[in-house]
């Protein structure tokens, strides 16, 4: 078995890689998005394909096509854009309309600028005006190199992103958190060194490292990848159409919606049905059953793990060893909470502070009984949220 290190900081060897443009893309959309294209419609690169119907300046961003093409299908979770069919004889070839660079970006400020960024594809739901801003410059998870790669290779983009954010949300102070021993500066913000050992790299713990307080309510935190997305929009004045994705030991600039299969082929990494795949890192990633899925714009990595390399999760009984308690950064008892959830005692999970869970996955990682500890906790949280919602609905009806 491979010896696992949970250090996330690495020596970046390669430069940021480009991938060949995919012939067709499958652009993920969320439930809140409203598709604004129809089947067979010709779309240009950068054209809006789904909108956020809310008029607020803070929310999930619009979705844009990352290639010129024809809308092949509009699904509940994705919009499929394929290559434009060759024109029939005697017909003019179709020229898709691409949007012009948005010159307004330079003149707008505050909420209007946030709204514009949202329309250009930036998720502004976690932005708030005049708060301290902390940039999480640590690689999010072991084996995911995105943050350090971007800090090394995309300084200009990050700087552009920071400048536009300064106009959009006017943060009080800006701090950049990087791994211990690294000396990086970014556009004049204060650099703070912190541990790079997972789970110290997750946002709440990075905030704690930077500010010294736990869950302060006047702090926004943004990852380097998110800052890079803002920077891309600021620098090109075009909608967001790419993600920086770590595959193996390299980081790729991937058009949004590129099928995972095409990315893996381009990256040349070994994969097959005897591998498990996940979007994002190995600790919090979302498992993939289908390589046709498109890369979402906030994706940071595609993780591959060979089947059988690690013991698989089983519904075994908890053996009370306390390993999860020792690794839990939230200082709760995941093992005990998981047993409450296992036996539907959700009120007990509330009194035992399940809401403090940071969802880092360390409890499942260390569990010698191979229990899906974090999933039990997630289940408990979901059940409690559903109960609360039911209760408040009842109150409204009174």
């Amino acid at each position, binding site marked *: 078995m491979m010896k696992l290190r949970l250090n996330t900081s690495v020596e970046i060897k390669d430069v940021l890689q480009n991938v060949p443009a995919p012939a067709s893309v499958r652009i993920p959309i969320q439930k809140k998005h409203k598709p604004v294209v129809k089947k067979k419609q010709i779309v240009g690169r950068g054209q809006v394909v789904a909108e956020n119907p809310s008029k607020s300046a803070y929310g999930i961003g619009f979705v844009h096509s990352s290639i010129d093409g024809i809308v092949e299908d509009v699904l509940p979770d994705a919009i499929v854009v394929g290559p434009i069919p060759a024109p029939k004889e005697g017909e003019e070839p179709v020229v898709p309309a691409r949007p012009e660079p948005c010159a307004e970006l330079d003149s707008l400020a505050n909420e209007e600028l946030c709204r514009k960024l949202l329309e250009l594809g930036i998720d502004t739901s976690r932005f708030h005006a005049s708060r301290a801003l902390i940039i999480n410059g640590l690689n999010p998870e072991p084996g995911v190199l995105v943050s350090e790669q971007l800090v090394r290779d995309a300084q200009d983009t990050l700087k552009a992103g920071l400048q536009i954010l300064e106009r959009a949300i006017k943060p009080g102070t800006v701090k950049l958190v990087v791994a211990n021993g690294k000396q990086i500066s970014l556009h004049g913000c204060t650099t703070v060194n912190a541990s790079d050992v997972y789970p110290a790299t997750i946002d709440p713990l990075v905030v704690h490292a930077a500010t010294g307080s736990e869950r302060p309510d006047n702090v926004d935190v943004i990852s380097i990848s998110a800052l890079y997305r803002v920077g891309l929009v600021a620098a090109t004045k075009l909608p967001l159409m790419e993600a920086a994705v770590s595959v193996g030991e390299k980081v790729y600039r991937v058009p949004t919606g590129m*099928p995972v299969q095409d990315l893996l082929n381009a990256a040349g990494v070994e994969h097959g049905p005897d591998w498990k795949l996940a979007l994002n890192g190995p600790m919090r990633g979302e498992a993939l059953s289908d390589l046709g899925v498109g890369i979402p714009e906030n994706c940071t990595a595609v993780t591959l793990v060979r089947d059988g390399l690690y013991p698989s999760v089983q519904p075994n009984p908890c053996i009370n060893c*306390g390993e999860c308690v020792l690794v839990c950064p939230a200082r709760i*008892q995941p093992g005990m909470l998981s047993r409450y959830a296992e036996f539907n005692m959700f009120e007990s999970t509330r009194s035992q502070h399940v809401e403090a869970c940071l969802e880092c996955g360390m409890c499942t990682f260390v569990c010698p009984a*191979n229990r899906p500890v974090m999933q039990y906790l997630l289940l408990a949280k979901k059940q409690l949220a559903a109960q609360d919602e039911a209760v408040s609905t009842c109150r409204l009806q009174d």
Partner: protein
Amino acid sequence: MASQDISKKIYSVATAPLWHSGRTLQKNMLQTLLALLPVIAMAVYRYGYDAVEVMAWAGLTAVVTEALVQKIMKQAPSSDDFSALVDGLLFAFLLPATAPVWMVVIGSAIMIILGRMVFGGYGGSPICAPALGWAVLAISWPDFMDLNGMLLKWDLVEPLSELKYFGLDAIASVTPMSLLLGENLGALGASQALMVLVGGVYLLSRGVVRWFIPVSFLAGVIVTGLVYNLIDPQLYASPLFHLLSGSTLLAAFFLMPYPSSSPAWRLPMLLFGFFGGVMVIIIRTYGVYPDGVPFAILLANLCTPLFDLIQPKPFGGR
């Protein structure tokens, strides 16, 4: 189009995290068995075939009892995690080498049933099963559990009984080195102090056992032993004697850190270990049994829920 062909293939999925530390109960128990090997070897060297017989019957009975009860309780059999075998061996380590087979079998079965299965199996029990098995036998058949009486065919003495019944002068000739090497009578495995120490340090180094409980337990023994020793050196034995005699070391590394019966947080673990250590000396000084270690463990186990009440504030809690 390659991506469309592939989209018909369904990959196996797993819940996050996809990585796992690789530690499983089975691996932990195999490591523990490995750590017990030197003790077994030394016990066989000292007590010969008698020790083999006791260990074999205890281990076999534990595994078979667990399998039978699991069958009755309609649980999936879990003999392959070796936890029953480990418990059986630890239980055997507390017995005199000449213990009658029927008693070993009864004790081992009771240990599994009362110490584990009534609570749902390994990991559910609030008490250390081997210590419970020992306690049941020590109360039910004290004569067969009396180390001095059972081991008459060896021309040696059991230091703790000597201390109890004849005072400090009786153990003046017992050197720490002889205690380390198990050159006195004692429980068949627990008295092989050096080998227990080797196994315990191995488990610590592999991370199977955390240092909190062993260290604080030994600290409790040493500090309390020292206090008594300072009160009257003519009356009370030195802390080193308490540390190396009886089943102190076996308790420190194997019985006190028994997962389900010890607390989980760091500070409670330290308090739990220290409390256990203090109880060992108090029971040895005032109790009716020469070696109070298994009782000290059971007492500490009973206090585990209390220690576990000392909890840190959750992250961001106000």
